[in-house]
């Protein structure tokens, strides 16, 4: 295969020609999101609309169209995901404190039972986790995490002892350490790069997957109160 097919010296003209429309789209989307935020009156809506604004950011980064740009999209995505999670949690905590005692503390049971919830989850979750394990890294972590999340969400058992939670969180902390070690090996002893690569890829996979799975644990508390 020709080297130019593998890696060209300059960015291809198609990408260059798409740059200006892409940037304009990004700016426009950002603008729409910002305008909407500036006249909304509700904090929850502000949270949803910030999602749009960060989509604008993704376009701006993607428009560069190089491998580097792709590597930069991943942090952008991660930051977006992380912040939405943290902020929504704060919002809920704030509202619960504001409402204080008057709220009905036990949430409503979900009375319907869909067929899809009984059969699909296990199968889909297994596929996703296996595929995620094959991919590893951020991508794999997100995919496997999505699988775990979905499984947990639609399973019938309920009640999360906080020990379990802390245990899973601890495991992902260890994975994070593994991953840092992998990174260090890359720079200290480049000859062991293969080991480093595997540590890095799987460390981050386990970490992301477990963390995402934890969201499912939060979610289960919400949706499956009826099946005691």
């Amino acid at each position, binding site marked *: 295969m020709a080297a130019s097919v593998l890696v060209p010296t300059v960015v291809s003209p*198609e990408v260059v020609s*798409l740059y200006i*429309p*892409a940037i304009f*789209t990004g700016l*426009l*989307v950002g603008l*729409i*999101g910002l*305008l*909407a935020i500036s006249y909304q009156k*509700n*904090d*929850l*809506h502000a*949270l*949803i*609309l910030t*999602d*749009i604004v960060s*989509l604008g950011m*993704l*376009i701006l980064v*993607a*428009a560069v*169209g190089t491998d580097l*740009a*792709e590597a930069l*999209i*991943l942090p952008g*995505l*991660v930051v*977006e*995901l992380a912040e*939405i*999670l943290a902020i*929504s949690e704060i*919002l*809920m905590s704030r*509202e*619960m404190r*504001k*409402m204080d005692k008057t*709220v*009905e503390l036990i*949430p409503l049971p979900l009375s319907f039972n869909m067929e899809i919830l009984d059969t699909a989850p296990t199968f889909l979750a297994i596929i996703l986790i296996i595929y995620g394990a094959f*991919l590893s890294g*951020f*991508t794999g972590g*997100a*995919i496997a*995490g*999505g699988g775990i*999340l979905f499984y947990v*969400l639609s399973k019938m058992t309920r009640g999360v002892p906080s020990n379990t939670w802390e245990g899973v969180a601890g495991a992902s902390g260890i994975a994070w350490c593994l991953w840092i070690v992998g990174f260090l090996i890359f720079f200290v002893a480049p000859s062991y790069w293969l080991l480093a690569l595997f540590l890095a890829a799987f460390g981050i996979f386990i970490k992301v997957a477990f963390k995402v799975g934890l*969201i499912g644990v*939060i*979610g289960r508390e*919400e*949706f499956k109160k009826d099946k005691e």
Partner: protein
Amino acid sequence: MFDIYVCFYTGVLLVILGSIATAIGPGVKDPIVRTLNTEIPSVGISLILLTYNHTIALLTFIAATVIIMMILLRAIVRMEELGAEL
């Protein structure tokens, strides 16, 4: 067979249309409608990523969108349940 321009401009159209719909579309007073409408620009972005062949980013993005949607839905349901006026 695959026309990157078609893909790109469909993506652009979806993104702009979707974000306008999210901002001022019909019935967006209801947060769940707003959340559903954010799915349109996110598919648009996916198309743009596909155009640039950012496929790994695309894969991550698809997974992340689902997670974000789940977080948002959880927040919405919880807020409704609390009866928060905001």
